């Protein structure tokens, strides 16, 4: 049979459904706009065990003491001791480093002779709330160190701290929520809407007729998800454009790579949506499963609002099986840090793995009959 013609008829039908249902239209286009604007409000961050890289030019007793003091709190964990300036950025690009502390060569001499020394803190500004918090903590720790060292004297502001926020110099919170919003919106539209639309066919009894037809199950699924894939993609572009023009969020890396990876994520979310639909008989069922099983964890546990590192271990594990977690990392990498694919291979790999896993499960669970 002429599959392309059948497929086209399917898509046409789906487009009629979408265009004739005002609620669907509202979710498709009203929600992304509303969410981008709502998430514009900053959210506070807490952290534990942030990874700190240290570039110690001094390498003397005083600098060692300072380092020990800073790491003694449990808020910071030494990730790497750097040897030269050019090693600094790779930690940020791979996402392993949260903060860099640079101790100048003359640190101890400046401090004891001139009563004045300078320390540089460099944070990853693509996550502004996190960067701000890290900076505040580091400052407090350094001041604590001073207090301990010079208990008797009361010399104020002995160490001048210079902070630079890489990738997001002004600490715009939009830099954080635009990637997060893209990840959430694409998830809602792709996963929730597809699971709803397939559940609707079951609820209305039309699935019964579709099954008693020569249509292969794969075509039924593809025909249902294809229009949503395209719409989700349009939404991703819409949010990027809004981010660029309203919140000045740049796309530093390759736009083509970014769009390509958006497509990969959309497919991940769609395969998840079809998987949900195979286990739900009604639209309400599908909606509950999407909201509780998908949307809530993706909002809370993906590192979008709260950093994963400060969560209890069990929540961190859950966070790591959520596609949005990886996609937000990918977006921050490509959009803000301007990295190429080689820095985000792991995240992309995880998404591809999830696609295969979800589709295999869907394939196994799709019922060629009613039971």
């Amino acid at each position, binding site marked *: 049979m002429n599959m392309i013609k*059948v497929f086209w*008829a399917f898509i046409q039908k789906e487009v*009629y459904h979408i265009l004739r249902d005002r609620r669907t239209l509202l979710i498709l286009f009203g929600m992304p706009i509303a969410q981008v604007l709502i998430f514009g409000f900053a959210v506070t961050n807490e952290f534990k065990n942030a990874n700190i890289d240290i570039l110690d030019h001094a390498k003397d007793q005083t600098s060692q003491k300072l380092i020990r003091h800073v790491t003694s709190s449990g808020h910071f964990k030494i990730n790497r001791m750097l040897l030269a300036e050019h090693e600094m950025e790779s930690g940020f690009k791979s996402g392993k480093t949260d903060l860099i502390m640079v101790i100048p060569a003359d640190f101890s001499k400046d401090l004891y002779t001139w009563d004045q020394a300078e320390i540089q803190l460099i944070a990853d500004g693509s996550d502004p709330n996190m960067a701000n918090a890290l900076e505040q903590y580091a400052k407090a720790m350094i001041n604590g160190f001073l207090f301990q060292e010079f208990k008797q004297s009361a010399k104020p502001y002995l160490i001048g701290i210079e902070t630079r926020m890489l990738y997001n110099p002004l600490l715009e919170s939009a830099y954080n929520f635009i990637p997060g919003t893209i990840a959430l919106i694409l998830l809602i539209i792709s996963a929730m809407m597809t699971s709803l639309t397939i559940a609707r066919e079951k609820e209305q009894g039309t699935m019964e007729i579709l099954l008693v037809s*020569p249509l292969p199950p794969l075509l039924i699924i593809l025909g249902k998800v294809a229009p949503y894939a395209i719409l989700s993609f349009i939404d991703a572009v819409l949010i990027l454009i809004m981010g660029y023009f309203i919140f000045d969020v740049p796309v530093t890396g390759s736009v083509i790579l970014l769009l390509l990876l958006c497509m990969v994520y959309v497919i991940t979310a769609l395969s998840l949506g079809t998987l949900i639909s195979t286990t739900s008989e009604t639209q309400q069922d599908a909606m509950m499963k999407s909201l509780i099983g998908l949307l809530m964890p993706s909002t809370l546990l993906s590192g979008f609002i709260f950093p994963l590192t400060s969560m209890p271990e069990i929540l961190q594990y859950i966070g790591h099986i959520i596609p949005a977690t990886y996609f937000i990392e990918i977006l921050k990498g490509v959009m803000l840090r301007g990295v190429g694919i080689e820095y985000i291979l792991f995240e992309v790999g995880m998404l591809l793995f999830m696609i295969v896993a979800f589709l295999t499960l869907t394939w196994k669970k799709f019922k060629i009959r*009613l039971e």
Partner: protein
Amino acid sequence: MPAIEVNNTSRTYGKVQALNSISLSVEYGELFGLIGPDGAGKSTLFRILTTLLLADTGTASVAGHDVVQSYRQIRKEVGYMPGRFSLYQDLTVEENLRFFATIFNTTIEENYNLIKDIYEQIEPFKKRPAGKLSGGMKQKLALSCALIHKPKVLFLDEPTTGVDAVSRQEFWDMLKNLKEKGIAILVSTPYMDEASLCDRIALIQSGKILQTDTPEEIVKSYPSPLYAIRSNNNYELLKVLRDKNYTKSALPFGEYLHLATHTSMGVDEIISTLNTGNYPDLEIKPIKPDIEDLFLELSREV
């Protein structure tokens, strides 16, 4: 080979026995009615035959294909109209028909002659969303969609439920035309009066087929003399009749009571046993049983 053949098919849902060793066969060009009340197992049988459900035991074939092994082939060759309206409510009449034509790899034009009589009646509303049609129109559209790919076997699960009397009559006329074209039609209905419009019928209750035959033969098999009785106080009369030892069964049928007796009795004989003073307008006449009488008689025995 018959169009539909069912052998000893059973199916349970949890503890409920939906079908209990059902057997029947339907020929091409035959209009076969499955008559029984709600919950008798009619829809379950339809779903097994349309390959949507698996039977627990027994075999069945449709258009020469086994319902389990060759389900793909069956899905190409049958038309199915589920018990509840199952078209896209937000698509127009024409869009629905075109969609179903396309997924069965055909076009409206190609098989228009088959649906012409039916579709012509709803064509004036072809731009209207299917959800806004009246009950009778919906069923005509659903029938058109089920027919558009020229099926060899047609399954219609309660097509006339919720449809007005005129549309019901029209619908059955259409079915008669379709069977003339060699299509095997299995139709279910809870309405006993529609049974006489079928070539053959099976009476089904609680998952069991009580009897299968032509409507005429089925009626002939009614075992007892039958009388229709009317009075101004049917309720009390019914109680009185049920206490008589000549009564086999007494059941209310609209404004009449149907009385079946163990032996043939004259009308006067029955009147003589009643206190006629209580029933000034008493009317008693021997009648021919209809399918409902037989159905009730059979289900009483079960």
